[in-house]
């Protein structure tokens, strides 16, 4: 399974949660599949989806899901110790690990070679780290939501992209709409 198929699969679960969605194709795909006011689309700033999501989870009680990629987590690897040491049980980090930098043309990442992000997360002190295949993402995500325990999910899947348009929504509109959904 590729990322867009996984997002299509889990869209009914994501719909009811606050979602911070990674820059590039992940945001474009989620926007096309199921645009919701509860989605915060990152239009820039590679690597910070997990940090934005953690800050949000620590600041209000609703469940927050950060959708991240293997390349983005590698860009901001310092995020994992911060997550581990500041436990927010309403926070889920969903890493779609396709072993490649999808948005830039599927160049391989080190996560697709010798580096195992799930082991990095565990070594950083993350207590609930789950690894699953693409087709089990929905099950793992729903279990993490129901557990009310901070969870890092690493989804091992195939690389590959679909053609789709960029997001033209104004960033301040995305942010304002999202903040109203957060406080609703």
């Amino acid at each position, binding site marked *: 399974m590729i990322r867009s198929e996984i997002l299509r699969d889990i869209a009914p679960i994501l719909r009811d949660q606050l979602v*911070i969605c990674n820059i590039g194709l992940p945001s474009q795909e989620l926007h096309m599949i199921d645009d919701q006011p509860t989605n*915060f689309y*990152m*239009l*820039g*700033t590679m*690597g*910070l*989806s*997990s*940090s*934005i*999501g*953690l*800050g*949000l*989870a*620590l*600041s*209000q009680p609703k469940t*927050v899901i950060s959708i991240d990629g293997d390349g983005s987590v590698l860009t*901001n690897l*310092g*995020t994992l*110790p*911060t997550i581990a040491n*500041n436990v927010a049980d309403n926070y889920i980090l969903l890493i779609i690990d396709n072993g490649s930098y999808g948005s830039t043309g599927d160049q391989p990442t080190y996560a697709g070679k010798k580096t195992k992000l799930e082991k990095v997360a565990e070594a950083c002190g993350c207590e609930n780290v789950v690894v699953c295949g693409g087709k089990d993402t929905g099950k793992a995500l729903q279990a993490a939501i129901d557990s009310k325990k901070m969870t890092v999910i690493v989804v091992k899947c195939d690389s590959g992209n679909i053609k789709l348009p960029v997001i033209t929504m104004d*960033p*301040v509109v*995305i*942010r304002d709409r*999202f*903040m109203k959904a*957060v*406080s609703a």
Partner: protein
Amino acid sequence: MNIDKKITDDLVANGISFVTTVPCKQLAGVIEEIDARDEIFHIPSNKEDEGMGLCAGAFMGGKRPAIIMQNTAIGVTINTLATLIQYYRMPLPMLISYRGELREPVACQVEMAIHTKALLAEMNVPTYHFHHQRDVEELDAILKYTFMCNKPVAILTDANFWGGYGDQ
């Protein structure tokens, strides 16, 4: 006047309840004071762009955030300032240790100091420079200004402001 307590009091009085920090020798006292306050959630970050991401999330969660960092980190955070904090129009007070200014003992610190104000000006970040201890009197107004205009605002605090390094 205890400067660390005064700064922390101003943060609390302005409703700032989420502070991320990357340490600096000059900021040690204020970071310690922030960490001790019940009104503030203190979350150390490993890098300043990560810290700005945390602040962006906290702001969208209804909290007033702030970041405490060194001026060398301006070099780390240009992209995050432009594409996250400014692009989505979010307020962010940045209390910055301005290393490499008068009374600086470490020569390499000067190399980023000479670029600091130019970079902030290029980014259109409103910038205030605390050089004398009495300059802290403006902090309250600067914080109100930051949350009025929803912009990142830089407060550069140099060695003279902090009273030197103690070893000179």
